[in-house]
């Protein structure tokens, strides 16, 4: 089994600036989310409705995908089907070339991060420019996002100022770390990109089967620029983003902003249905992406991970994520949702991620679509490979525990052999693997008299 996560986590834990940035940022969003979610009397009913709609989508995915294709095509869009990342990237690159362009502007999108569209474009001699402020910061730093919603959560503003100064050619001289100054520098930089781009690439938060519409939910307005200014628009959409009816948006538009940024309503919601004459892009392409999703669908317990609307509420409440950040997870989807999504989307890889959780359940409590993340974590642990030594130890423990007489004998032996430490009451240092415990914790010593002894005495 891979030990990538524990090792990467250890590195992250040794970075005090990172831990302080993360604790501050997740703590702030956590409090905002709790406040605005608490304002709605029907929050729990909304969560149940969202879970039911998503479960319906998972049961009827082929039918809904075909309906979406038909309705979007009728409205003037061109729908493409991509089995995997390579197919999706190839289609996007071909459309870009056919539009006579060698660069695209991008709306923040997890699907294109997942398929590594930027890297693929670069390899093909095309440029993909991120226009979301945080994604821009990450791209300039030649880094990877560390959070689904707040990709640059691991940087503070001083670090961002330095990235702009060193990596953004048109950064104003004497740029300070004042948030307004940083935003203005990014705005000027991006404005030039928006005005020259012929092609834009987006993802979508929702794809409405009934109408063939796509929906993008954002805060900055850069998405709206990308979706309306260039002549060609390419949207890469995971098939799990489907919703049956337009009216279903009513549920999700209440849940998503509150769960993600802790706002009652997000500043920009763009909905488009194919092409509109004289308005917006003339050429509209939609790439429906599978990339492992239909395989996940086949697992009755695991498939609830496909209900995810990428709000990041689970990341912000996760005590593990808060301390390690997103990079430690080694996948585009970090945190609790990543721990159940990554190993399912890429079977055989990330088998250490289902263990990157204390199963505290904070994620399930806040998930707006009620994904029972602890349940799926345990389910995946039960599928996964086990290390031979551990398996033998667990089997031995079970063999003892399944036999009451052996169990009592084992407890008696533990009391007997731990006598030398009883005076002090605890053990400070144990041999491996107990050393993993005593690295930070003392181990209590079994008592002289067990409950069983006491009970037997009492019965007499």
């Amino acid at each position, binding site marked *: 089994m891979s030990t990538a996560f524990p090792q990467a986590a250890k590195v992250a*834990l040794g970075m005090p600036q990172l831990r302080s940035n993360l604790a501050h940022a997740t703590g702030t969003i956590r409090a905002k989310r709790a406040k605005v979610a608490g304002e709605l009397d029907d929050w729990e009913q909304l969560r149940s409705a969202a879970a039911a709609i998503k479960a319906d989508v998972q049961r009827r995915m082929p039918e809904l995908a075909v309906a979406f294709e038909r309705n979007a095509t009728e409205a003037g869009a061109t729908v493409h089907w991509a089995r995997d990342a390579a197919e999706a990237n190839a289609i996007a690159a071909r459309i870009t070339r056919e539009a006579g362009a060698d660069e695209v502007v991008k709306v923040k999108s997890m699907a294109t991060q997942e398929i590594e569209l930027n890297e693929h474009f670069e390899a093909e001699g095309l440029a993909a420019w991120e226009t979301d402020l945080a994604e821009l910061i990450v791209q300039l730093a030649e880094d990877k996002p560390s959070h689904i919603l707040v990709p640059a959560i691991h940087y503070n503003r001083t670090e961002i100022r330095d990235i702009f100064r060193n990596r953004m050619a048109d950064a104003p001289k004497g740029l300070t770390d004042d948030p307004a100054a940083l935003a203005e520098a990014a705005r000027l930089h991006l404005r030039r990109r928006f005005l020259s781009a012929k092609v834009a690439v987006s993802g979508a938060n929702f794809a409405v089967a009934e109408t063939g519409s796509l929906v993008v939910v954002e805060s900055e307005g850069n998405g709206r620029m990308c979706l309306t200014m260039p002549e060609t628009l390419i949207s890469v959409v995971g098939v799990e983003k489907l919703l049956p009816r337009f009216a279903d948006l009513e549920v999700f538009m209440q849940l998503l902003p509150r769960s993600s940024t802790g706002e009652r309503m997000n500043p920009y919601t763009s909905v488009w249905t194919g092409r509109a004459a004289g308005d917006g892009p003339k050429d509209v392409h939609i790439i429906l992406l599978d990339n492992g999703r239909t395989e996940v669908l086949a697992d009755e317990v695991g498939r609830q991970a496909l209900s995810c609307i990428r709000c990041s509420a689970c990341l912000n409440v996760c005590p593990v994520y808060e301390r390690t950040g997103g990079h430690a997870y080694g996948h585009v989807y970090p945190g609790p949702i990543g721990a159940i999504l990554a190993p399912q989307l890429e079977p055989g890889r990330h088998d250490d991620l289902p263990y990157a959780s204390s199963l505290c359940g904070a994620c399930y409590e806040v998930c707006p679509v009620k994904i029972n993340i602890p349940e799926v974590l345990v389910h995946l*642990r039960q599928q996964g490979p086990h290390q031979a030594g551990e398996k033998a130890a667990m089997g031995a423990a079970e063999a003892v525990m399944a036999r009451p007489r052996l169990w009592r004998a084992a407890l008696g032996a533990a009391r007997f052999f731990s006598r030398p430490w009883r005076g002090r009451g605890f053990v400070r240092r144990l041999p491996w693997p107990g050393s993993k*415990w005593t690295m*930070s914790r*003392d181990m209590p010593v079994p008592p002289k008299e067990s*409950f*069983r002894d006491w009970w037997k005495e009492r019965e007499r």
Partner: protein
Amino acid sequence: MSRIGLFITCVNDALYPQTPKAVVAVLERLGYEVDFPRAQTCCGQMHANSGYRGDATRLAESFERVFGSYDAVVTPSGSCAAMARDQYPGLIGSDIGERVYELSEFLLDRAGVDDVGARFPHTVTYHPTCHGTRALGLGDKPLRLLRAVDGIELVELPEADQCCGFGGTFALKNADVSSAMLEDKCRNAAGTGAEYLAAADNSCLTHIGGGISRSGGPKPIHYAEILASTA
């Protein structure tokens, strides 16, 4: 009279006899007769949550055999009660978990008592353990019982709902992250200045207590022992 079985849990069986003794004392004070079936061992949670479904299934079956005939099973562990209630249906198709009560559930929901006649003149801070609070939905039940204790002074624990970092084998597999979580929990606990840190699970208290043993802070105690106290 309904038959009440006491499930002491493997952790208490091995390390903490005082906690099940306290449960017996509280229940008997309220007039209940308690039975301790000697064949009990472990609910199987460690195996299930570490990914060993086969082992867990056999332990769950054994639990069902031992406790199947009782009208109610009382246990001083939110985590083990949650195991029976949440996971046994999927594991062995048994609804015995419906009859397994964490102590505070039994006292408040079944016995209808919140004042158990205890006296404990000390300052206490309370850590709501994750499985009890979230998986079992205990809410503030143990706290309601503690509030009714004579002489007790309860002090709020900052960031109380954050996991202490135990998580069973998580504490070993991700020892560094676990230790970082523990460090914050111990700091918050020590900051309360309380004499005792109470909780509904001795496994979590083993973890927190193991940290406090080095860094200093309140003495860990299962809340059942506070309820049993009449000092």
